[in-house]
């Protein structure tokens, strides 16, 4: 699976959103992306890309787009 597919899949599965909503999706936009959903999403991404994010990056991860920038730091190109 391509990286972008894995990335999208993590959002779709943990936040129960459809792919067409992803591009503009931000923290708290949907009910499932609350603090509990956030940690589940972070865990899913760490699992998918075999990385370990720093706490600051988990805090900064405020949107679908911002997340792409953050994952770049961990060598994940999307």
């Amino acid at each position, binding site marked *: 699976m391509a990286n972008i597919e894995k990335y999208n899949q993590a959002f779709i599965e943990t936040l129960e959103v459809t792919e067409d909503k992803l591009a503009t999706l931000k923290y708290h936009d949907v009910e499932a992306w609350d603090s*509990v959903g956030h*940690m589940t999403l972070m*865990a899913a991404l*760490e699992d998918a890309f075999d990385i*370990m994010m720093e706490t600051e990056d988990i805090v900064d991860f405020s949107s679908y787009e911002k997340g792409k920038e953050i994952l770049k730091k961990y060598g994940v190109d999307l």
Partner: protein
Amino acid sequence: MEWISERRPAEGERTMVISGCNRGIGRAIVEKFIGERYHVIACVREADDVFRGWLSELSQRENVGCAICQLDLSSEESISKAVKDIVSSKVKLDVLINNAGVVTKGLLQMTSIQSIKDTFQVNFFGHVQLTQGLIRMFIRQKGGVILNMCSVGGMDAYPAYVSYGCSKAAMIYFTKTMSQELAPYGVRVNGIAPSMTDTRMREQMGEEANEEILRRTAMKRVAEPSEVANLAYYLASSESSFITGQIVRIDGGM
């Protein structure tokens, strides 16, 4: 992190991580959990030959996996490294026991702020950092148990234990808050608050403190480390499946 056994945790088997287990209460907990067929990741500042020999013998006797992970709670770097080692080992963690601790004595007027900070680093911030790093594993697998070694010293006041008592009170609040934050992921968090227990820490506390505690204790004796270990095992097991956010005193009636 270094496995000292050939054996590794297999699917469906249980693994626990514990800090400060080369002696005292931590050592008794390791013995109890290995006896109950837990695999163990033993986090210690220094693993000497005696400790290695003891752990290796236990792991062979019970046919469980044991790993040693270097961890100095006074160093953020060491904690980060331990977290990375444990997470990347890909072992499924069932239990984390934040056990290591130091005791410092001194009236407030005689205690430097630096010494209070040093005590807090080991007894509180170090555990917070380790927990923050490892809970991602529990969140991912949607379950687990965290036990924090608190103390009656974090609840009852004793003169000259301001830094120790405050650091343990912080652990108590941390335990309660984490239990709320982690409940949605199926993770239980509890604290154990022993009174005087027969370890090196007891010796360090001196005769006066020992006498005062015995005076306040209905059962007129101190706890054995194995008694604290039995409580830890209960709180880690599914027998306590509806207990979270509690600080359980083990104090012989105070």
